[in-house]
């Protein structure tokens, strides 16, 4: 829907400021608000800005796009909003972005991201035929219709060096459990989640339609994703493209495999670990338990919670294109750095993540904070791999 259609719904925002804090623990909840501080960066401020834009009281210009695009769409404000406005917040943010895009107000970083994804099918200008290179040297094979799962890796897992390590870890664990699965390699396309959240609906539709056609052609019935971003968009947006698939995040599959006794975790992992909830798995999809269930089965692992956890979790700052645009980086108030300090203060030696974007955001933050020697960041699949019997 265009922004104009939200004119009345915008009035549902009570301007109460609950979107700034968790309503149960009263910790800060908004990554952009914490980074920049001005009310414009909180959900309340964005509602006012949208209203004033519609009323013509302020003009559409580049600075408004800078404010609009610094939201990570993490859903923290949605979780805290006590009135019906909560049901419309993210749709309104999306409408704001679409309008910014139509008015050509987007930042060079966002423009480059979208153009590169359109031209190359990934944000790094990497060649499509290299998309499956991360699996070279492993026993991970191409998907065949008889396979139970298609393992969808996504752009970060396919091209980002750290993401590729995580992609391999998930694949190796699935192999060890005897799961019948395969990957698409260079037939895989970008999932389009970030393009959609950046307001480029046309590009998203192009990407989603391409992937959906591939799924149909290969008779894919079940997908396991590496990234919560892929999980989210395939679960909620792909059905309109006729994909007709069951979508799982890999932590859900690992949970079931462990419960079924298909993985032998007999090596001790004696570390004090905290788990960072990825926004697109937790708040956006309500999956808080599967990753914790996996971690709780690791022998020797002590799981400690950060003050902000589950629905009150604090975003790493990488959502909705900010992983690529880096618009929240640059100071000690950057969300990733705030989060990594929180993990350290919780007494953790290791932060477990379940998202390749969170992995990079938090690992970078640990380095900047000078904590990389004392606070490792690992994906849950990597921890499982280390705990598996030889």
């Amino acid at each position: 829907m265009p922004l104009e259609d939200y004119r009345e719904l915008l009035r549902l925002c009570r301007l109460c400021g609950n979107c700034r804090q968790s309503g149960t623990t009263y910790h800060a909840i908004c990554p952009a608000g914490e980074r920049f501080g001005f009310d414009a960066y909180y959900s309340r401020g964005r509602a006012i800005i949208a209203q004033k834009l519609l009323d013509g009281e302020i003009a559409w210009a580049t600075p408004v796009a800078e404010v609009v695009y610094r939201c990570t769409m993490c859903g923290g404000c949605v979780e805290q909003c006590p009135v019906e406005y909560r049901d419309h917040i993210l749709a309104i943010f999306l409408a704001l972005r679409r309008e910014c895009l139509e008015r050509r107000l987007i930042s060079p970083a966002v423009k480059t991201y979208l153009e590169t994804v359109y031209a190359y099918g990934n944000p790094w200008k990497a060649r499509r035929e290299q998309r499956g290179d991360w699996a070279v040297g492993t026993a991970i094979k191409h998907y065949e219709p008889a396979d139970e799962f298609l393992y969808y890796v996504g752009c970060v897992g396919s091209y980002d060096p750290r993401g590729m390590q995580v992609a391999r870890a998930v694949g190796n664990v699935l192999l060890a459990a005897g799961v019948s699965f395969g990957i698409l390699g260079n037939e895989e396309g970008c999932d389009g989640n970030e393009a959609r959240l950046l307001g480029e609906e046309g590009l998203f539709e192009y990407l989603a339609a391409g992937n959906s056609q591939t799924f149909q052609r290969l008779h894919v019935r079940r997908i396991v994703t590496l990234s919560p971003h892929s999980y989210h968009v395939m679960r909620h947006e792909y059905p309109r493209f006729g994909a007709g698939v069951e979508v799982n995040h890999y932590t859900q599959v690992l949970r079931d495999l462990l419960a079924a006794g298909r993985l032998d975790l007999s090596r001790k992992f004696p570390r004090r670990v905290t788990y960072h909830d990825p926004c697109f798995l937790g708040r956006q999809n309500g999956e808080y338990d599967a990753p914790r269930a996996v971690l709780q089965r690791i022998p020797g692992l002590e799981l400690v919670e950060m003050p902000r956890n589950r629905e009150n979790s604090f975003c790493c700052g990488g959502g909705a294109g900010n992983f690529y645009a880096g618009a929240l980086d640059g100071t000690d108030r950057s969300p990733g750095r705030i989060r990594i300090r929180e993990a350290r203060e919780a007494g953790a030696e290791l932060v477990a993540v379940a998202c390749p974007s969170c992995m990079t955001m938090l690992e970078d933050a640990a380095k900047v904070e000078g904590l990389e020697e004392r606070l490792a960041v690992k994906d849950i699949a990597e921890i499982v791999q280390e705990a598996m019997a030889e």
Partner: protein
Amino acid sequence: MPDRILGLLEEIVGPDKVSADPYTLACYACDATVNPPARPDYVVIATTVEQIQAILRIASAEMIPVVPAVGMSSTGGLTIPVRGGIVLDLHLMNRIIEINEDVGYAVVEPGVTIGQIDAELKQRGHWVQVPAGPPGSAGLLPGYILHGYGHLGAKFGINSEQITGMEVVLPSGEVARLGACAVSPYWFHRTPLPDLMGLFLGWQGATGIVTKLGVNIYPRPAFKAMVGWGLFSNHDDPLPERCARFLIKMQRADVAHDISGHSWGAVQIGRGRKWPLPPKPAEDPEIFFSATTYAFSEEELAVKKRILEALIQEAKEGGLPIASTDVTDRAKTEMPTKYSLRYSDHRGGGGLDYIGSITPVIKWPQGVKRLIEVFERYRFTPYIRLSIYRGTVQGMLRALVPYHRSDSADVDAVRKMNREFVEVLLDCGGLIYKAPDFACEAMWRRADPAFVALLKRAKQLLDPNGIMNPGRLGL
């Protein structure tokens, strides 16, 4: 041409903590009330006392208005910069400086939220009186220094009664500590020194900026009970005088932490019912009351609850038309809560305004009847709240109006109603708290001229250039 003032402000707080862009300014121009919006010229996020000092020195020299703000949930237009200037956003000054359980106080910065201090104290087995209206994300300090209505008012009184000390930056840039902390390392009480804190309480930021606040803390009781009763009066006499006298009697028993009432419409709106409400069913009470008490043991709680129930029974047998009501759900609600303002969407449109007063309880019957008449004349659901304050026979009497922000007829009606509410409450001998400018002016019209003259002299003395939240207080 470079903005010279912007440059000066940037030198103090850094360029990323000052904004003059229209998008940022727009967010600080309004609240959820019908008070007309007005944009500041600058928004500055201050994080230290030294920065506030430097900003106020510049503002004084340049005659620029300064309006302090914290959680952006303010009502009454209190943080709307009616004459432009600088909005000083203090929400990042959010440290709990000290919690002294032995001496019984906490010291907080302006940005510490109600929920933040409550959560911290809860872990330590303590509590603090929290402002009852705002959500947990609102600042504690503004509610306290504005004489806000606090929860558990029957035990603690008005929020400002809990203040034990403060640090304030004067418009000149000087910093002063007031209360025991001016002499002692402990922020324990306002007395026995001459109490200068009154120069900053209820002044709506017109005399200086409070940068630290000491507040009483108390051991937190673990047990809670609530009793409820409905008043089956009639529309022509919704709160009979004998009911007011019963409330006074209950307060004087000194058992309840809170004694509050809600008009029938207020209860329906609180339950999420939308405009328009059906007519009140005959079997429903006109006003729902509740008394809440806390205790440190089950035995103590049982005794307190028995006393409250006996008082209700006695009143009933004495002919007061009341009957017990089920308050099981309400008893589960703890303050603070993020849901405290959700009723603002009763008419759709998210607007909320209110006029609140501190009024003698014995005048509540007259006040409630006349407030309802105003609501009905403007075709709004009567929404009235009442709460008794500690050890007294006065309390909070408030008329609240959910309205539609984009409906100009609604906005116009609420503006007129607010002015009528003020007159009704003043007629009842009440005083308006967190008063919008027109309500202040209405009070001063009835006030002792010498009092108003003294207010003006105090303001002139502290803020000779008139930079602090000008256009407020009707001065």
